[in-house]
């Protein structure tokens, strides 16, 4: 299919300039007006007052002009603005990386690693050292078992030390209680003692009457034994105490 010249779109303005004006040629009024407008646009962009819209042809020119101006050191951002820009860029990078890994774990169903979702297992450690970024969520989950184990061990050691320290105290208290029990006055009739006071002098005519004497001794000691055992708590009474 053939097309006539009238069907073609109009040529670009630059394409229409078949001849490049010579370097020493005087600019036309139109060129001057256009250069002035472009200079105003550059000034506004550098000053942070970029227009909401600009011609598509002017945008690359503006960016190039901005880079050239910044490279020459003629434009420097305020420190606060520089810090804000850097922090915002880092935050976007971290969030984007963590989001990518989370989505990769969900998709792969594998244990989280330091590498990105697009890396293989062998490449993950290298990626970890390369980016040096460890999500806080992953660091906590890795340390949690050791924190629990360490805490439980410390508690167990503290309990053991406490019990060992309390052991000697109890050992000291036991003799004290025994001594206090021994210090309690034991009635005379409940003590094991000589029978002289009970029997008295033995007349010669009764020197062989040991039966009556042993009966008296047994009866007296039995009274004391019963008084002692019956005055104690029931659990302390010996078995078969009544004879």
């Amino acid at each position, binding site marked *: 299919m053939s097309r006539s010249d009238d069907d073609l779109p109009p040529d670009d303005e630059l394409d229409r300039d078949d001849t490049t004006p010579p370097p020493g040629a005087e600019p036309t009024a139109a060129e001057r007006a256009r250069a002035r407008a472009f200079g105003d646009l550059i000034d506004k962009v550098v000053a942070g007052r970029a227009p909401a819209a600009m011609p598509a042809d002017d945008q690359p020119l503006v960016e190039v002009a901005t880079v050239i101006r910044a490279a020459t050191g003629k434009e420097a951002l305020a420190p606060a603005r520089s810090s804000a820009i850097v922090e915002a860029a880092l935050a976007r990078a971290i969030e984007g990386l963590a989001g990518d890994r989370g989505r990769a774990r969900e998709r792969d169903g594998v244990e989280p690693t330091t590498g990105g979702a697009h890396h293989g297992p062998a490449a993950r450690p290298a990626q970890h050292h390369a980016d040096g970024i460890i999500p806080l969520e992953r660091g906590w*989950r890795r340390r949690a*078992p*050791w924190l*629990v*184990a*360490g*805490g*439980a*061990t410390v*508690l*167990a*050691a503290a*309990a*053991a*030390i*406490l*019990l*060992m320290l*309390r*052991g*000697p105290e*109890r*050992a000291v208290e*036991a*003799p004290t209680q025994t001594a206090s029990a021994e210090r309690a006055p*034991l009635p*005379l*009739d*409940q*003590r*094991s*003692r*000589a*029978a*002289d*006071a*009970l*029997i*008295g*002098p*033995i007349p*010669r005519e009764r*020197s*062989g009457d*040991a*039966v009556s*004497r*042993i*009966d008296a*001794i*047994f009866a007296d*000691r*039995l009274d*004391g*034994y019963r008084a*002692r055992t019956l005055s104690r708590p029931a659990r302390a009474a*010996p078995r*078969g*105490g009544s*004879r």
Partner: protein
Amino acid sequence: MKLARTTIIAAVAATLAFVAGLGVTSCTGDDDPGAASRRTTRLPEPDDVAAKTDAPPTPIDEQLMLALAQAKNFHHKAKVYMADGNLDEAIRAVRQILDLQFPAGAPEAEDVRLDAHARLAKLLVLQGKLEEAMSVVDGGLAASTRPSFFSANLHTVKGEVYDAMAAVADDGSAAGKDKATTLRKAAIVELDRSIQINDKLQRELLAEPRE
């Protein structure tokens, strides 16, 4: 999974440490310095009586009552044998009293044994076994550790044994009369010793509060 396994291991370690602590404390809290001396299988030692002087009062316990009850039964058994005229069995019953196991350091043990020695000596005298009776008396006095009415009674019995020996020795001859005189003097010495012990003990008892 790894988190759960590590947590379980930590919990087990803590439990083991806790149990070990309980074991250590339970082992260290069982020291009783007086447990060895309270063993029922412990035999009386010679130092028990001396140690008894400074020892705290010993309560009347089951072992003492058991020994006293057995001594009482043997004495009654001997009494029955004597009523039946069986001196040999009576002597055997009284000898069993000397073998009874009393609590270590119990003052009643010495009193009961001295009384058994006295009765045994008198039974042997009735049998005419004077030398054996004297041996029994001497054995009882040698085992005595303190003056008592029972030791005084044993001196009295010893005097009776000497008197019996004198009666046997006095056969009418001059030598027999001399030997009898010597034995009677010995009997008087033993009786005087018995009186001295009784007097001393009575004074001490009068100075002390009565039971």
